[in-house]
């Protein structure tokens, strides 16, 4: 089926105006004509569920539930789409905005939530085990501490990163 760009406009405009407004899509609409340069996106090559039929913007926005669209979080922020867009649009930046909304509505994948929780509570994306301690000791490297973790948690709290996760406070006190 050949879809003329006019139809594309109509379809996009048919999406809830709140979405168009929420993500400032007005700036995309006059330009983003499925030129498909942004099909350079690596995720389109590798991910079987992520096969845009039109442009990225179209596919995410026109889905039933843009914020809950699992494909959204597959964007690896490589920025290639931004490099190649002849109109200087950035699907990446748009995806970032939608990711933020997705996260704040509790619609992000559980691995994302765990990563955020790990960073805000321990200061690191990965847990430190005795294996780490042993490896570092053997190499003559200083042991890892969590001295900065308190500050990281404080900054995360005041800037809102912890709003959507449950943090168990230490029992002893």
């Amino acid at each position, binding site marked *: 089926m050949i879809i003329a760009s006019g139809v594309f406009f109509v379809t996009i405009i048919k999406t809830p105006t709140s979405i168009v407004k929420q993500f400032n899509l007005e700036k995309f609409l006059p330009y983003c004509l499925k030129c498909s340069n942004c099909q350079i996106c690596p995720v389109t*090559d590798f991910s079987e569920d992520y096969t845009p039929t039109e442009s990225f913007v179209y596919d995410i926005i026109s889905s039933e539930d843009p914020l809950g669209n699992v494909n959204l979080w597959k964007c690896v*922020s490589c920025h290639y789409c931004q490099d190649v867009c002849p109109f200087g649009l950035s699907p990446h930046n748009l995806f970032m905005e939608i990711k933020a909304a997705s996260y704040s509505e509790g619609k992000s994948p559980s691995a994302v939530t765990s990563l955020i929780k790990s*960073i805000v509570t321990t200061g690191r994306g990965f847990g430190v085990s005795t294996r780490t301690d042993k*490896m570092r000791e053997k190499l003559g490297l200083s042991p890892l501490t969590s001295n*900065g973790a308190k500050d*990281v948690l404080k900054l995360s709290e*005041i800037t809102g990163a912890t709003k959507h996760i449950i943090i168990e406070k230490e029992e002893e006190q």
Partner: protein
Amino acid sequence: MTKPNLLFTGCLIEVNYPYLEKLANDLLPKIGLGISDRIEFMCCPEPISFRGATDYSWLVLAARNLCLAEQKGANIISLCNGCENTLAQANIMLQNDPELLEKVNRDLAEIGFNYKGTVKTRHFLQAIYEEVGLEKLKSFVTRPLSFLKGASHAGCHLLNPADILKFDDPLDPVVLDELMDALGIEVIDYEGKTLCCGVSLATADDREGSINALKTKLLATQKYDADCLIVGCPFCFKQYDVGQRLNRKRLDEVEPTPVYYYLQLLGLAMGLPFEETSISTHKIKSQAHMALFKGEEA
């Protein structure tokens, strides 16, 4: 007066690959990039999911790390593409936008910090390329690794956004190739140099996509007869090395391909004993390479 450099290892290296931290500490000063005593940074933080979910907190936590370097009057040399990607982007945002800097500083004041914007951050490959330079780098090579046919993988987050990372042409990268050539490595030019490693797809619950990315890359390098992949990012390293082991059954058309982090090869080319590279701890090992790495010691 040149500023001292602090090493920004990132979580993955300090926790899982501390031998790369050790190599950086030992080797970089030998080629003229002095490294000050370790200070403890916290997660950069992660530029994809963490930033996507919570952009402003990402910026403030990155600013906290930049402050730690500024307090020491130092610049940063990072060992991970993800860390450099975060630090470079956050730094530029803060340096170019006084209002944003002021807002961030109001939050940082809660922990007694303030960022002025004086820190320079570089990925170690960039620091070697720009500050040491290819000619001087070659002068440190005592054992050229001419038996390696290496395929470079610079990685998306070191290349993009190019106007901020300023490392190389993201559509046709050559800097890592030149750095490999300086060590005597035969550089394999192949189609697929800019393919994403795919490690982050797993965070979006897309394990299949992640395996496809791994496989596509390895088939590409294999087609051009590369006998190893060479990276400068611990996440790409983990994806290619551990990924090949974990997904062995799914990769039957693929020759197991060893993966080396650039500093390991720099060390070998400078005469470092094989044992000190920790290459023997990799999941994918080439006996032929290991014999040559050791053999040339004698």
